[in-house]
Every structure is written in structure tokens, then in C-alpha cells.
């Protein structure tokens, strides 16, 4: 059984065809990397997976946990266990971050803990504070409106804080490292590693992930990456060993990935990109 199966989808946004015959499978416990030049359609893929209104699936199917979700409303997909860290989340005027986190926590409680003990609001508050302090967020931040006036790095940390509360089974990270300073990249990576079960033995790794990045540096901290894919002009042009592919891009840029010619000697020529920890 596959966990996430994207089967030959074509997607139109604002009257423009962006994803073209796109297919991708991610199994339970796998973490994949998606690379590609600006405008390739990576974010479009994420929003399509969430079922956002303007993202029209013209053909193809999306399955998650053996259920077709192509037509499902966003919140139903999230209920099934999909979670997203957005590249550019909007500022939500009037909704406090603490408020949103509390609601997320309640949602999470309703979805997953209904058979065991109830997570009630009172339990959540100190918990929230703990999570927030791990990300160096003070109460002042929690009392601000979601993303209002947040710096680039703060936005990413606020996004990952929401992931910590939601604890999804499939985590989609859209550039978690862009605009983030080195120390905070490591902090974010550490939490991604946790959320993705990377420290458990492989048979207990139940979380799956898709990481979009331009830098590769963050991957160093995430343990074994199953596969890397290169996306160009709305479709995957090349898939393979992450170290090899990233080295090839560093050396030759994306253009040569169009024909998938560059990966022959990447890993040996550029040993400085080191995935071992």
C-alpha cells in the first residue's frame, strides 16, 4: 500500500497550466526531497495536495492512506493527517497565534485521541508554552496576530510550531530554510527530525515527509533521505539518490537535469556536500 500517491495530475491555476502529468509516490516512513528552479511549480503542488480553491485538477488522481482525496475539502485532508509548512503564509489580522494553536490542538485532540483520554483545553496551555519556548517564542509572540509583522525566520518558526501541535502523518515542508539564519535552520531541522520520527528505528518510522528546498544544507540534519526529485516546468524530470542529485545540481545547475544527464559522477566530484551526521 502506498501512503501518498499522486497519479498523473495536471493542474491549472488562474487559467494557466502549471502541473503537467505529475506523478509521485511516498510510502510510510519515507522522506523525499523536491528540488527545482523558481517557478517550477513546487508550491503549486503543495497547494494542490491541500485542495485550495484556485488549483484545478484537470486530470489525474491523488490518494492518501488508500483513499482518493482529489475532491476532498482542505480540512478533511488535514483531518486525515496532512500538514503543511508554507513558504509564504498570509498574515491573519485579528487571529492571535495562541488562539490558532489552541484551536489546532483541539482539532488534533478530536481527530486522534477520541478513543483514549480527552485532551482538554486546560491541559494544552502549559504544553503550548513549552513548545513555544523550544522555538524561542515568548508570550509576546503568541499574543500577536498570526504572522503579523513576523520576520522571515519568525514566520518559519511559527509554521513549525503549528506542525508541532498538529502532529500530521504526512509533513509537507515548503522551503523551511529560506530566509532563516544558520542557528535557526538547525533548530528547525531538529524539530523536523523529531516530527518525522527520524530517530526511531526504521520499523517504527511512521511519518512521511516531502521537503522542498533550494539549499540542501538543512538535509544534513534529517538523517536518511529516501529519494530526491527534480521538478521543472511542472513535472518531474529526474529522481534518484539525494546526494548524487544535489551534487549534480551544484555542479551543473538545473538545466542539465532536463535531460537527466548530469548525475553520473556527482557524488565523487563534490564530496563537500556531506549527508552523514
Amino acid at each position, binding site marked *: 500500500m502506498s501512503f501518498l500517491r499522486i497519479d498523473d495530475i495536471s493542474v491549472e491555476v488562474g487559467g494557466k497550466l502549471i502541473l503537467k502529468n505529475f506523478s509521485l509516490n511516498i510510502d510510510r516512513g519515507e522522506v523525499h526531497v523536491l528540488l527545482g528552479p523558481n517557478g517550477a511549480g513546487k508550491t503549486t503542488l503543495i497547494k494542490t495536495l*491541500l485542495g*485550495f480553491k484556485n488549483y484545478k485538477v484537470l486530470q489525474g488522481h491523488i490518494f492518501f492512506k488508500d483513499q482518493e482525496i482529489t475532491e476532498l475539502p482542505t*480540512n478533511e485532508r*488535514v483531518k486525515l493527517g496532512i500538514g503543511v509548512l508554507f513558504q509564504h503564509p*498570509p498574515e*491573519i489580522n*485579528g487571529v492571535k497565534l495562541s488562539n*490558532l494553536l489552541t*484551536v489546532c490542538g483541539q482539532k488534533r485532540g478530536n481527530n486522534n485521541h477520541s478513543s483514549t483520554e480527552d485532551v482538554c483545553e486546560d491541559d494544552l496551555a502549559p504544553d503550548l508554552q513549552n513548545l513555544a519556548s523550544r522555538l524561542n517564542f515568548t508570550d509576546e509572540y503568541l499574543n500577536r496576530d498570526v504572522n503579523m509583522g513576523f520576520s522571515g525566520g519568525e514566520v518559519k518558526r511559527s509554521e513549525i510550531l503549528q506542525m508541532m501541535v498538529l502532529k500530521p502523518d504526512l509533513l509537507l515542508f515548503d522551503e523551511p530554510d529560506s530566509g532563516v539564519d544558520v542557528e535557526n535552520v538547525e533548530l528547525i531541522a531538529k524539530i523536523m527530525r523529531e516530527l518525522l520520527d527520524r530517530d526511531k528505528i526504521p520499523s517504527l518510522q511512521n511519518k512521511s515527509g516531502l521537503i522542498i528546498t533550494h539549499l540542501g544544507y538543512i538535509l544534513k540534519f534529517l538523517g536518511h533521505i529516501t529519494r530526491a526529485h527534480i521538478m521543472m516546468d511542472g513535472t518531474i524530470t529526474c529522481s534518484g539518490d539525494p546526494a548524487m542529485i544535489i551534487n549534480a545540481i551544484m555542479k551543473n545547475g538545473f538545466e542539465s537535469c532536463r535531460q537527466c544527464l548530469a548525475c553520473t559522477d556527482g557524488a565523487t566530484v563534490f564530496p563537500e556536500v556531506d549527508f552523514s551526521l
Partner: protein
Amino acid sequence: MNQDVKSKAQQVLNEAKLKNDDGINLDDYNMGNLGEAEGAYQSESEIPRDIKESMDSVGIDVSAKKSGLYLQSGNKHDLCVSNVKGVELMPIKEALIKYDGTDGKLNLKDYLWKAVAPDKDKYTAEAAIQEITQGYFIYAKKGQKTIFPLQSCLFVNLPGMKQVVHNIIIAEEGSELDIITGCTVHKTAKKALHLGVSEFYVKENARVSFSMVHNWGDDTNVRPRTGIILEDNAQFSNFYIVMSAVKNLQTNPFIQLLGKNSSYYGQTLIYGKGDSYFDTGATAHLIGEGSKAELISRVLAVDNAHIIARGTIIGDGKNVTGHIDCSALILSNNSRVDSIPEISARNPEVTLTHEASVGKIADDHIEYLMSRGLSEDEAINLIVSGFLDVDTSPLPEKLAKETEKIIEMVSASEMG
């Protein structure tokens, strides 16, 4: 009353009758219980349950600690309790007899129709012609303070009635007044007209905080007419909340900041639904040097509601500052909001600004919240409740808490 005032008022009424520009004919309504015996109840415990429930709906909790309570049904007062020495609360008819200027006492006539012009429109004219009808008089003597908010409730209890109220509030030098007031209509009295003249006089270094909640029916016409005069260093904060349907409500308090460094902060919250028509605003005239005014409104329109949100600040004095902030959300296809901020500088040394936004909730905001597991309705509710989360910090702590409680309660019951 001055014969001259009366004949002017009569002239305004006659002219208005010919035009009838807002479709409300004053002769369609009767004065109901005018002239019946005053003071139906001896104490709070005698207030019937259904009236208590109506009072609750506008935030008047009879059991709460208070400095006084005034209850008026239709055109007569039912109950008036005053608990604080130095702060008078009484029916205005009584007050006009007591405060006649003899023995060095205040002469209330000096304050009658001084902050609101009797010939302003047909409503003030009607109130002037009706001679003085009932209403409340609040009088904080020099340096005196309310400890708990004063409560007042104006209740329209009979169908077809026009309630004509005249209130006068005087805060003497250095005094402080916190007032919560609610105006509402009995379930059976939907077709009604509420006409309320309120005149506020805030003297040197005095402070008044006023929280008002309206809860009407969909066949109620409402015409509050408010005038506020602020002397040196006087402060006024005004919260006005309407979250019920109404037929036609129009109000535009006129604030004259005569005194040096006087300040006015007004916040209005309107939730228009059904076929409601609202035309609300405020006009602040900054005259005293260093005076300032802030007019804030939050407007929410659903169903077929039409809301006009106005704000006018006129800067006349030296170094005055004013700001208008109006944001409106439109949540249905048939609702409409017009935002009309107006700032006018009559002196190079004034700073006046405004910001306004009108629109629906952005799709990407809703989608973002949905991506955190909220349904579309939950996402909208979360954003709307954030929108209604007004800043009560300009109010003194006790009144701020009360006001927040009221907003929470009213929004919970009105928005389901």
C-alpha cells in the same frame, strides 16, 4: 421652555413633515404610557423576570455591584436607585424641579439643549415639542467618583410606541463617571421608535466612560441624538455596540472638544443583519489647544444589511490630533457597507489621519486556517470573532471587563 426654541422646533417639524426624507413619520407612533404613574418598582427585586432578561441582553446585570440603577419603560421611569454619595442619579423630571438654581444649587435649565440643538432635525424638534419627557440625570459633584459603573436601561415596552428620552450627564471638575447603558425593546413591541437625546458636560479634569449596548427588533426605528462638551483636560471614552437587527438606525454624536488637551475616544461595533439599515458615525470638533479625538469603528454586514459608517473630525485648534479608523467585513452577497471618513483641517498645526478598509474575508486567510484543520465556517468564525475583539484598554479596568463580557455574550447569542 424658551418659547423661541419651541417655535423654531415646530417649524423644523412642519418642514420635515412635508419632506419626510427618511420615511419615518412621527405621527405613526404614540406616546404610549406617558403620564402614567412613575416608579413602578420599589427595588431591583420587583423587576419582573422577562424585563430582567431583556436587560441582560444589553449587559445590564441587576445583580452586579453598581453605583446606581435607572430603569425606564416607554416614557416613564420604573426604578431609580442611587448608592453613591456625591453622584446623583435621578429621573430628569425630578432633577429639573430639584436643580432650579435656587440656594446656590445648579440650574439644570442652563444645560438643557446646550450640547444638542433642538432644531437640528425633526427628532430633536419632536423631543423639544414634547416638552421634557422622561430620562435620566447623572450628576457627579466636584471630585466625586463612581466606584462601580452606574447602570441605566431604556426599555421600549409597547408596540406602536415612540419612546422620547432626554438624558443629561454632568461631570463636575475632577470627577469620574463610569456608565453602562442598555437600550432594548420588548419582544412584542417590535414596531417602535426610540428617540433619545443625551447631553454630556464634562468639566475640567473630569473623566467619563460610557458603554452603550443596543438590542432592537427588525421593525424598530432608532434615533439617538447625542452631544458632548469637553472642557480643559476632560476625557471621554465611548463604546457603542449594536449587534441586533434593526429597521433603521441613524446616529451621529457631536463632540465639541472646547477645552485644552481634552480628549475623546470612540469605538463603535456594528453587526448588521437581516434587512437592517444603519447610518452611524461621530463628528468631533477639535477646538481646544492640544485636544485629540480618535474615532474607531468595526462593522460587520451579513444578509441584506446596509451599513454606512461615518466619521468626521474637524481640526480647528492649535496642535490638535485626530484619527479615524474604520474597518468593515462584508459576509454576504447582498449586504453593503459605505465607509465615509472625513477630516478637515482649518489650521496648519493640526494632524489628522484616517484609514478605512471594506471587503470580504480574503480567501487565502480562510484556506490557511482550513489547512490547520478548521472547516470553512470555523475559519470564518475565528476571523470574525477576532475582528470583534475590540480594544477596551481606554476604559477603566472594571468597565473594560464588563464591556468585554457584554461583547462576548452578545456576539455569542447574536451570531450562534
